[in-house]
């Protein structure tokens, strides 16, 4: 069992022009990942791109792991072109994970854009433990909202927004979240928030949580080189100094981050 292994690409499914769902199957017995953890993926070839790229665990499958990714730069463009049977180099699972809520807490998930990739397996885990989360999911446009049917199955309730109003309510996901929290009827002090998405969204979520005295966990993102805590490249500023996203994170208590 090693956290550095080769894997076979079993499927590289196109969801639409901008997103793919990749399934890989390790050649050796892997370490079991927890929701919130990530893998560094490298493709075989020369040294361009040079570094591996971090991707959240989207879902565990019977034989392997799934990564949900957006085609954004050179690395993900090359990844999209990989066919079934290609060999990839994987480091992981890495980092910490979302702390599971005690039974008496009400989980609430906030996802922005591709941040859904990180919280999906958490929603699945919560559903399996019979404590389904209310999921707030916002994206730019309809085509950026992914896996909605699968999400509905694992969510207690799914609230959706898009910036352009092409699906769900028009606006920011944090707008409807603050409305929810300002409503005395719907507000529940036992809520526990989990969030992954753009930094601005996470900051707003942290602010809402702080205002209501609710515990919130956020999954942070930074440029990363080694993934195992050695290079100190991926730090975020916290109230206790710089902390590594790959080691002390990616999941942090929202109040620990210096926004």
């Amino acid at each position, binding site marked *: 069992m*090693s956290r*550095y292994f080769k894997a076979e690409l079993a499927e590289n499914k196109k969801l639409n022009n901008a997103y793919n769902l990749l399934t890989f199957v390790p050649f050796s017995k892997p370490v079991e990942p927890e929701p919130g953890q990530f893998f560094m993926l490298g493709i075989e070839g020369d*040294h361009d791109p040079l*570094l591996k790229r971090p991707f959240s665990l989207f879902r565990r499958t019977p034989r392997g792991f799934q990564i949900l990714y957006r085609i954004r730069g050179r690395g993900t463009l090359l990844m999209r072109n990989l066919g079934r049977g290609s060999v990839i180099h994987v480091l992981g699972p890495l980092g910490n994970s979302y702390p599971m809520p005690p039974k008496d807490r009400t989980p609430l998930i906030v996802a922005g854009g591709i941040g859904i990739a990180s919280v999906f397996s958490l929603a699945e885990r919560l559903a399996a433990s019979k404590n389904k989360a209310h999921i707030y999911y916002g994206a730019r446009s309809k085509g950026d909202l992914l896996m909605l049917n699968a999400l509905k199955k694992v969510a207690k309730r799914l609230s959706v927004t898009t910036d352009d109003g092409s699906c769900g309510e028009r606006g920011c996901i944090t707008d409807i979240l603050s409305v929810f929290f300002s409503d005395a009827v719907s507000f529940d002090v036992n809520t526990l928030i989990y969030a992954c998405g753009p930094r601005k969204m996470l900051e707003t979520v942290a602010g809402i949580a702080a205002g209501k005295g609710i515990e919130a966990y956020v999954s942070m993102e930074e440029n990363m080189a080694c993934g*195992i805590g*050695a290079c*100190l490249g991926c*730090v975020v500023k916290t109230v206790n100094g710089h902390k590594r996203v790959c080691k002390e994170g990616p999941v942090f208590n929202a109040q620990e981050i210096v926004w």
Partner: protein
Amino acid sequence: MNLSVTIGKLKLKNPVMTASGTFGYGEEYSEFIDLNRLGAVVVKGLSLKPKDGNPPPRIIETPGGMLNAIGLQNIGLESFIKDKLPFLRRFHTPVIVNFFGDSIDEYAEAAGRLSSVEGIHGLEMNISCPNKQAGWCIFGTDPKVTSEVVSAVRKSTGLPLIVKLSPNVTDIALMARVAQDAGADAVSLINTITGLAIDIKTRRPKLANITGGLSGPAVKPVAVRMVWEVYRSVKIPVIGMGGIMSSDDAVEFMLAGATAVAVGTANFINPMATIDIIEGVEIYMRDNRVTDVKELTGGMI
């Protein structure tokens, strides 16, 4: 087949070491490789007091390389001695501690303190970080200051002393001679090359520190050339580094004049890179009927 080399009075079982700043304090990689197989472990640069380093973003990939501006974040040498060194003592691989100061006195004090503890086998003084404040770089770029700081450290340590040189100078061979004359047992080169990357959409630098140090395959030809220049002008051993990704690269550095090599950025891409390189050097030696790895040093024809 003999793979051992000597750096001053330090004997290494093979010429492959880790490059400071890319291997943490050793622990991080012990899950992936047997540290006992390495020629030496060179740990992340330490200072007398802990440092929090530069704000993020600290790294950005560039074609065939990466820019970093970590800013020498470290836990401080007392925490290293207390919390990290005991783990490294369990291995029979020499531990080389990279260190730096913000003044000549700090350099000397740090070297003295590190020389007083069990389990440290050599020191590498960093006078060449490209991400420190302006003014700091004179330790590695002004021959007079280099001479003073190396002399001061030499007086405060009996350990094998390696001076890590900056490529951001006009004449690196001159800097190597200065280090040698001031008492260095070896020189290591190159540290990263100062670089800059700009986001053309936002017109902002891609690193919070604006500039950073370039490493990876992109710098290798520059590093090999500098090793060759230094090798020809000093008597002390040269430790070569800069973009070593494979055993072929390691052999190339040795042919240019390196006695030993250090693997840096490659660790990030493949945590087993050092072991692959050691094994590859052995295969090269067997295939080319080289019985002693020392024959490779300066072997360019």
